[in-house]
């Protein structure tokens, strides 16, 4: 009989969709009641996330097969899926509460639609984690990426619409690449004949397809533009959970990359092609990690800075994945490290993004201190300060990649430098938030504190943010120790609190602080550089857009010329043809009109009779 876990698995996907259906169908009733229904469902939407939460917490294994759906889909929860789903649950739950648990007056415009899109994204997101085979993964991935467009466009400002346009173009490219990759993958596996599988092509397609989502360098351009455009709760989810779908895609489907047995039959993919691809990915990841810091520091908008920090952190994670590809032996270890780090980053980055509005509304007065501590804690976690989840994540990943050296320098020396980069970014973020807070402080004072009861139900964003911060502290340890430990990472055991481990976590941060201090002292003005197109948010994007525009103008001019000339050619030949037929018809009419008169036809008849008689009589002669 279907186990309770299978039912929970099905419910966790179904509940959100039911909520979305209610919101959508509310449109049929009249205006006012529709609005009330939508608001009620939005408020209740965090509950939709509950079954998934129960599933991840209670069970560690779940299996559900739906033979009739599409080509027969299967859902399966294993360790990484369980961890990532839990993070998704926390983040989406927080985001949903942040949006809906606010006073009706300043609720987001069209909050019903926003929570609906969030719920669909949630279904798609956990769908990608829980998918057992390529098809269901692709279904979930498409649902997630196209409904995410709904989040980015929410404010419908010009910037949001540009961001969505770019986001849609990039996601269409990624969808098509993944589709082609999956078809090749499935036929190769089904075919099973060794060595013939187009490893290079499959790996390249999947790298590109998931690279777009995971923000690896050349394909990251949409991220710094899209995340800030979305409402803060949505960008928390975008950065925290959705980016991880790219990661799980790599882990599950890249040939020989993932630890699970699925794609790695012995000998199906030839190894050194995968290794070279891993090398390329590693280079791009490191480039991304450090370039993002340089670009992020000069930005003006705090959310863009956070976006760049996401790109750099994802660079860190994809470096881990790349190592897994280069050295198949380490695949299991690096995968676990990547997942763990993803968990940590998801929660920390989510806390920061959720924190942005919280700082604005509750930054002062009684809650001010609480906000300050929370934000500082999250920032330190992201930077990887000791005793925080960040340190734990970094420590696990460092141990996983000890032996690898890049251009002579050990990888485990390079990775900590990413920490310095992120400290710099976070300093910049802190400065911008403080600056922004100072300007709005004067106006915010007027908003007097309302009664405690009202306060409870309307402080959604504050509570959700607090919840994420607390989770950020506890959950990564929990997952690291209990969930992942048994399967993959047996030998590291307890993390040692030895002074050397603490110092390893500390020196990058100190270095970052030092550089930041120097910047403040020398009062480097960042404004002059900001205008340069390269430093606009999405850096390469501006260049690409102008390039695309120019090439589109050029080709369309050429094409129109081609079409005009072919149209002219066609009409000319058509005219000549009709002249020809006309002449032919005129000719027949003229010859026929000869017969019109009596004498004319009489003559012809005479000739015919003469021929008949003559040929018959003398016919025999020939």
């Amino acid at each position: 009989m279907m186990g309770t876990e299978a039912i929970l698995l099905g419910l966790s996907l179904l509940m959100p969709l039911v909520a979305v259906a209610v919101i959508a169908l509310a449109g049929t009733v009249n205006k006012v009641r529709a609005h009330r229904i939508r608001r009620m469902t939005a408020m209740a939407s965090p509950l939709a996330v509950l079954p998934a939460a129960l599933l991840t917490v209670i069970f560690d294994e779940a299996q559900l097969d739906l033979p009739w759906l599409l080509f027969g889909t299967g859902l399966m929860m294993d360790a990484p899926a369980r961890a990532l789903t839990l993070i998704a649950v926390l983040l989406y739950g927080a985001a949903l509460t942040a949006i809906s648990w606010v006073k009706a007056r300043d609720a987001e415009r069209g909050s019903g639609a926003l929570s609906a899109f969030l719920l669909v994204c949630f279904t798609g997101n956990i769908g990608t984690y829980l998918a057992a085979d390529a098809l269901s993964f692709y279904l979930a991935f498409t649902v997630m990426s196209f409904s995410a467009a709904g989040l980015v466009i929410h404010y419908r400002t010009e910037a949001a619409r540009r961001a969505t346009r770019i986001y849609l173009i990039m996601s269409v490219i990624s969808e098509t690449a993944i589709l082609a990759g999956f078809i090749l993958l499935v036929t190769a596996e089904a075919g099973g004949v060794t060595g013939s599988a187009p490893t290079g092509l499959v790996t390249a397609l999947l790298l590109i397809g998931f690279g777009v989502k995971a923000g690896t360098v050349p394909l990251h351009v949409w991220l710094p533009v899209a995340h800030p455009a979305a409402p803060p709760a949505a960008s928390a989810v975008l950065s925290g959970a959705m980016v991880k779908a790219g990661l799980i895609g790599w882990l599950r489907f890249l040939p020989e990359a993932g630890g699970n047995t699925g794609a790695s039959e012995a000998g199906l993919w030839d190894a050194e092609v995968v290794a070279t691809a891993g090398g390329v990915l590693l280079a791009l990841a490191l480039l991304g990690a450090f370039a993002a810091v340089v670009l992020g520091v000069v930005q003006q908008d705090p959310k863009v800075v956070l976006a760049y920090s996401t790109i750099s952190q994802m660079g860190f994670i994809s470096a881990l994945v790349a190592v897994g590809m280069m050295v198949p032996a380490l695949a299991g270890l690096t995968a676990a490290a990547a997942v763990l780090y993803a968990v940590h980053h998801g929660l920390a980055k989510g806390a920061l993004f959720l924190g942005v509005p919280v700082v604005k509304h509750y930054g002062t007065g009684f809650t001010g201190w609480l906000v300050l501590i929370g934000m500082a804690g999250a920032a330190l976690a992201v930077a990887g300060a000791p005793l925080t989840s960040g340190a734990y994540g970094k420590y696990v990943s460092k141990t996983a990649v000890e032996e690898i050296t890049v251009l002579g320098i050990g990888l485990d020396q390079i990775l900590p430098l990413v920490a310095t980069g992120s400290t710099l970014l976070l300093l910049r973020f802190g400065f911008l938030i403080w600056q922004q807070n100072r300007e709005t402080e004067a106006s915010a004072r007027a908003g007097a504190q309302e009664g405690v009861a009202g306060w409870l139900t309307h402080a959604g964003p504050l509570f959700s943010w607090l919840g994420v911060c607390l989770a950020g502290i506890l959950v990564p340890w929990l997952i690291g120790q209990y969930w992942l430990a048994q399967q993959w990472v047996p030998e590291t055991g307890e993390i040692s609190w030895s002074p050397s481990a603490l110092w390893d976590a500390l020196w990058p941060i100190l270095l970052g602080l030092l550089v930041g201090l120097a910047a403040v002292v020398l009062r480097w003005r960042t404004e002059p550089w900001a205008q340069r197109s390269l430093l606009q948010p999405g850096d390469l994007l501006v260049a690409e857009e102008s390039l695309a525009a120019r090439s589109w103008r050029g080709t369309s001019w050429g094409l129109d010329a081609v079409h005009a000339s072919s149209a002219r050619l066609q009409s000319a030949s058509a005219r000549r043809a009709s002249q020809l037929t006309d002449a032919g018809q005129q000719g027949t009419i003229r010859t026929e009109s000869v017969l019109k008169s009596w004498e004319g036809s009489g003559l012809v008849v005479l000739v015919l009779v003469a021929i008949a008689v003559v040929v018959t009589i003398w016919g025999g002669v020939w």
Partner: protein
Amino acid sequence: MTELVEFSLGALVLLPLLAAAVVMLIGHTARRVLGVVTAVVTAGFTVPVVATVADGDAPELVLGGFTAPLGITLRGDGLAAVFLAGTALIAVVLTVFAALVPAATGEHLTPSGWRPGHPGFWPLWLGCWAGLNGVYVSGDLFNLYVGLELVGLTAVALVALGGRKSWDPALRYLFIAVLGSLLFLTGVGLLAAVTGTLDIAQARAVLEEVEDPTAGLLALSLMTVGLGMKIALVPMHRWLVPAHSAAPAVVSPILSGLVIKAGLVILLRVWLWAVPLVAEAIWLAWLLGALGAIAVLVGSVLALRQDRLKPLVAYSTIAQIGYWFLAFPLLVTEHDDAGAAPGAYSAIVALAVGHMVAKGGLFAAAGYLKLRFGTDEIARLRGAGAQYPALILAMGACAVGLIGLPVSLGFAGKWQLATAAVGAQQWWVVVVIAAGTLLAAGYLLRGIAPLLLQAPQESDHQLPDTGDETAPAAAGSKTRAEGAGELLILLLGVATIGTGFLGSWIYDLLGVGLW
């Protein structure tokens, strides 16, 4: 049972003749009643004949006990049965139509000017029908000649019923018809002189022994040219268009549908039954084939250029005639394998009968429209379909038959012609058929589409000469009788599609009494 069949063979020819004589004595309305009664009875007589032929044997009737060569034998074989049935169907429908819509039978001059309807139509039409039946069933050349002359004479007179502008074409038709029959008479004379008998079967037997074929061949070629004139094969077709388009509404279908078929039947009798096909006759067959191909193309192109409906349909007749002669070379191919000849022969018959039904319907509809709207200019008939949906549907169905699209005898005929041509490796025939089909679709579309899809209030294609461009005004409201007339034409349209399913039945019928 056999007496009934033999009696009906004789009755088929003599009853309409008798009725023609009687009808001259009675008043106008009585003529219509007697006409209809005779039509129904004559059609009734065809049923036993066709039934016996369908069973496989060909009934014969020796008139007055005089056996050949002096006496006259009437033979009802496959060819006769098929044409009898087709003519009966069309004749009954057209007779009832003429009775219901007297205006369709022409105009007669009264002291106070021209009045619609011509009582003279009835005797002439019944005489013509008698002649037709005579031609189909007669077993000897002399009777063929008499039947042919009877049909020719009545046809010329029927054309002349159409009022002043139909006299000139009638006269021209007369001259051509008489010249044709005189040539045919010379041929018959030659054959009689050579074989000593007029009976077709006996003549063939004698001719097979005679080793010098020139006499037989000369007779054949003279007869062919004579009949070519009467059937209006291309160089000799100029009389047909004015005659058929000037003729009254009910006479044009009779002319195009039935009268020219008499010539064709005689031609087939002479070519296949009377004169044994000898090698020397090959060039004559190829001449006919070439003229047929030219007819198809020239007829279609000219039909494309017509701007009035009845000339368009008349030229379509000329094109369709081309198809029958196109098949002649296949009848006498050198390596005369058994497959090609019967295929080509049944193709000609199927095409002819299909044309009979379809052209009858189309010409009747065109004539009816000209009667109702006073003009048959396509541009001014634009939008006539709105008031006459059934009529336009009938025209559409008949167009299907004429173009040779599926489920019509036209299609069955073209199919057999194409298969025979492919069997005999004559690819040019297939090319002509394809071109003919497309051209036919072209000119019939040009004729019928504007009626069906009216946009009368469109001012952009205002004809310079006509003042008002509102929907063409029908002359007075439709009487019940005219409504019934319209349904009759629809019956012809439906018959075109219905007979489409009889392709293989006709083929089996033709097998009876083959040469």
